């Protein structure tokens, strides 16, 4: 997986599929990344979360945990798990092209 082609562009990803260089990510890659995570269509709510992930990462150097997402993204915990059933913070980070958020809560 380290080298992968997404939306026609070669990007660097780690063994788990997270981007190692978030600058390589473009919005055009998101639908394809989402499909490989089992999400067929990205809704406005999905995008709200993805953009929040990107801006948190840009500001803090790390992606938010689910708790932070639930408190500050405007999308509730319940909705987050409906949007990203395989784990909101982890899945959204993968689709948003940022490293996996680290945090126990």
């Amino acid at each position, binding site marked *: 997986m380290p080298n992968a082609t997404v939306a026609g562009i070669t990007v660097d990803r780690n063994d788990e599929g997270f981007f190692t260089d978030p600058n390589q990510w473009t919005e055009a890659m998101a639908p394809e990344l989402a499909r490989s995570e089992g999400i067929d269509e990205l809704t406005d709510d999905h995008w709200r979360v993805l953009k929040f992930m990107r801006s948190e990462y840009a500001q803090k150097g790390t992606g938010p*945990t*689910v*708790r*932070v997402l*639930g408190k500050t993204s405007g999308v*509730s*915990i*319940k909705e987050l*798990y409906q949007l990203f*059933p*395989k*784990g*909101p*913070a*982890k*899945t959204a980070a993968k689709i948003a092209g940022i490293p996996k958020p680290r945090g*126990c*809560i």
Partner: protein
Amino acid sequence: MSDSTKPDPITKVSIIISKGSLEGIYPGLIMANGARAEGIEANLFFTFFGLDAIHKARHDHIKLATVGNPGLHMPTMAGGLPGVSTMMTHYMNHKMEQLDIPSIPEFVEMIADTGAGMYACKASVDLFGLEKNDFIDQVQDIITVGEFYERAAGGHIIFT
């Protein structure tokens, strides 16, 4: 799985919370929440004094055990003095708040929102003379140990 040497990932956990102290309840909650965050299916089963974590009137008053807790590194006699447990609990809650760890009532609600199952143990409920009404709405059912094993099928069981 492409790499045959890599073990299969965990896909389901059932976590038993059997203690009613602050340090007895949090680890199970953190593990359940963490499991859901990884996309792992999770069930929580509250038994014996662990029931306090989902008891409407009690879950906001969970205390740290200051007696018989050598990890606190304080003399047992001091731990038993009136007010010490309350004070230490207060201190611990404050520290956790600084780290943005939710209170037990908030945490339990949050975990229910992640889609984790919450169950109370029938034997303990009967023993303490409790009923469904005593528990927060997030508790789905009061179940027997046999029913717990049925629900835990295909996953790992973690006892705390």
